[in-house]
């Protein structure tokens, strides 16, 4: 290949990358940079100019008890949703992968929550949870138990939000597991059957390791979703009662658009980005090495 031809190929490649590069810069990198910059300044008050304050905004944030409460809520939310929804997704995928009457219907039923818009799902669940007229308390009442104020009691409100999220997420993750299971070569199962391998050890020794790439993908998605929750809080609880269900991104929204405090919103955003960055790095370095790709 001549030098000019090589150049041309390079230009061709660069042009192919250009649209993505422009979009990413405009909607991901630039906002990130401006957010970091905003978090280092204090806006002027009554005509005063903006002032550089360094890490002061971060110090103020770390002294804010509400921030820590919200961060703790988010950790509880992540621990509550991620493993449960993944385990449930795997179980459902294994179930509908087998020979089953009305398999298509069951698959569709599992997937239904995913196609509902978040706001619609939250509205439905608000009526499930409603203390007197809600489905759950009517069921409990029929069994002779007194009802629970699912969203109004600070001790159970976050749990209620978690349950709804698991319901919403599991069906979505199931699709990935199902696709992975369908793509698995049948010879493995045939060989295992010839050797007389038990189903349980076949699952642990063969199926599960082969599902690791999918699990890694689902895990990252689940983590992102755990930090991305904002829409159903609008409907279900507005972060209440008394911040019992307030999560990080909702707190960012509140600061930016209810309190007009762009500085605090920017500062929290940077903290979230840093934490997510660290977690992602850990995952890709540690988990990826243990993941078996076919």
């Amino acid at each position, binding site marked *: 290949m001549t030098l000019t031809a090589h150049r041309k190929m390079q230009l061709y490649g660069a042009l192919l990358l250009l649209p993505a590069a422009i979009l990413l810069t405009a909607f991901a990198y630039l906002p990130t940079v401006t957010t970091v910059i905003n978090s280092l300044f204090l806006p002027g008050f009554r005509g005063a100019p903006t002032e550089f304050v360094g890490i002061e905004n971060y110090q103020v944030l770390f002294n804010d008890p509400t921030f820590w409460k919200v961060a703790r809520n988010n950790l509880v939310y992540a621990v509550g949703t991620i493993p449960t929804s993944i385990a449930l997704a795997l179980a459902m995928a294994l179930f509908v992968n087998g020979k089953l009457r009305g398999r298509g219907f069951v698959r569709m039923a599992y997937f239904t929550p995913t196609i509902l818009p978040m706001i619609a799902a939250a509205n439905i669940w*608000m009526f499930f949870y409603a203390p007197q007229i809600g489905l759950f308390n009517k069921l409990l009442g029929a069994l002779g138990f007194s009802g629970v104020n699912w969203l*109004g009691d600070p001790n159970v409100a976050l749990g209620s939000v978690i349950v709804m999220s698991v319901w919403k997420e599991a069906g979505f993750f199931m699709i990935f597991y199902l696709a992975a299971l369908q793509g698995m070569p049948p010879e493995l199962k045939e060989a295992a059957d010839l050797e007389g391998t038990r189903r349980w050890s076949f699952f642990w020794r063969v199926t599960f390791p082969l599902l690791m790439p999918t699990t890694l993908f689902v895990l990252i998605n689940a983590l992102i979703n755990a930090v991305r929750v904002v829409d159903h809080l609008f409907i279900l*609880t507005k972060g*209440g009662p008394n*911040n019992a269900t307030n999560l990080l991104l909702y707190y960012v929204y509140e600061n930016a658009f209810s309190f007009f405090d762009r500085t605090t919103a920017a500062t929290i955003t940077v903290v979230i980005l840093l934490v997510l960055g660290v977690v992602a790095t850990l995952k890709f370095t540690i988990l990826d090495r243990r993941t078996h790709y076919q």
Partner: protein
Amino acid sequence: MRLRPPFALTALTAGLLSAAQVNADSVDLTMYYPVSVGGALTDVVDNLVEEFESEYPDINVEAIYAGNYDDTRVRAMSAMEAGDTPQLSVMFSIDLYELLEQNAIVAFDDLVETDEERDWLDSFYPGLMENGQLDGKTYGIPFQRSTIVLFWNKDAFEAAGLDPETPPENWQEMAEMAATVREASGGDQWGVMVPSTGYPYWMFQAFAYQNGHRLMSEDGTEVYFDDPAAVEALEYWVSLASEHNAMPDGTIEWGTLRQNFIEQSTAMIWHTTGNLTAVRSEADFDFGVAMLPMNTQRGSPTGGGNFYIFEDSTEAEQRAAMTFIRWMTAPERAAAWSIETGYMGVSPAAYETDALQRYVEDFAPAAVARDQLEHGTAELSTYQGGRVRRALDNAVQAALTGQMTPEEALSQAQQEAEGVLRRYAR
């Protein structure tokens, strides 16, 4: 904007005939407005705007529906930051301080010129003007406004041996009647529900005002959350569940409350008058609407949206915006708006129109919100309003869920609000 061909043609012909003159004099206005109740209100607004434009051919109004009150604020503020300020908007009446702080709006006093216009400024219910005024100047003109009212289930009252036509007059009666209903139903039905999500500060303000206490200063720089009268008000609210067993424990959801009332799981609710039409069409039992009960005095905060005119527009645009707002708030329009939406007629003259008089005669509950206005107070509105309201919301919820005593919760909210307002109080 949709242009129907015949109209476009006429407009074109007219434009050609009168040369450039019409264009030079015509004014384009952009307006954002929220809808926070059900129904096809955007159609109602579109029709009004169309009617206005045919009466004032040289003013074009582009009315843009922008979501609920918070969305509208976000939308207008972002447009302002992007240098594309609307000339006027309908926004939350309590957005006043935030708008002033951003130097976003102008006072109507600076725009009015004639005596007739000055009279127009004085034509509204004073109770509705409170949230729109500061330092003797008027910045917000009432448009879609409400108060909190008490809905009661007459059938449930009768079944409990109470007089179905008599709603509770005061706090003590409400607690007793509610407890009576609860007992008579064998625990199947609650006595009363006051919502404590969504707008807890709004409901709490009603309790506090009924106890003779106003939660904030006129100039929006101070709050008085931990006053003994406020603590007593919150204690009463908490006692409805804890002592009288008349209201469920924990917080009560704003969004499902109307359904609770319609399914008769509670005999009384406190809710915005904006729900009146929906309750009227859905309830299959006899119900009544009353003013909220009193303790030392009657009272309810007002709520809803006002018209604002934005600073960043030309004098001609501001004059045109005022012409439009005057037209929209004229008695006949205010009456029609009230009938179609359930919001209040904003001026006494609106209730003197034939249309609204006939409507009230036919459906008496429609007048309760107006009658209660006499006992109205401004909705909680301060500088840094979002954060201050949130502090109070949290306090109310902490008390209702038993995490704190009313006194602890309110003094914490007071501290938090004082911290935020420190630089404004000076």
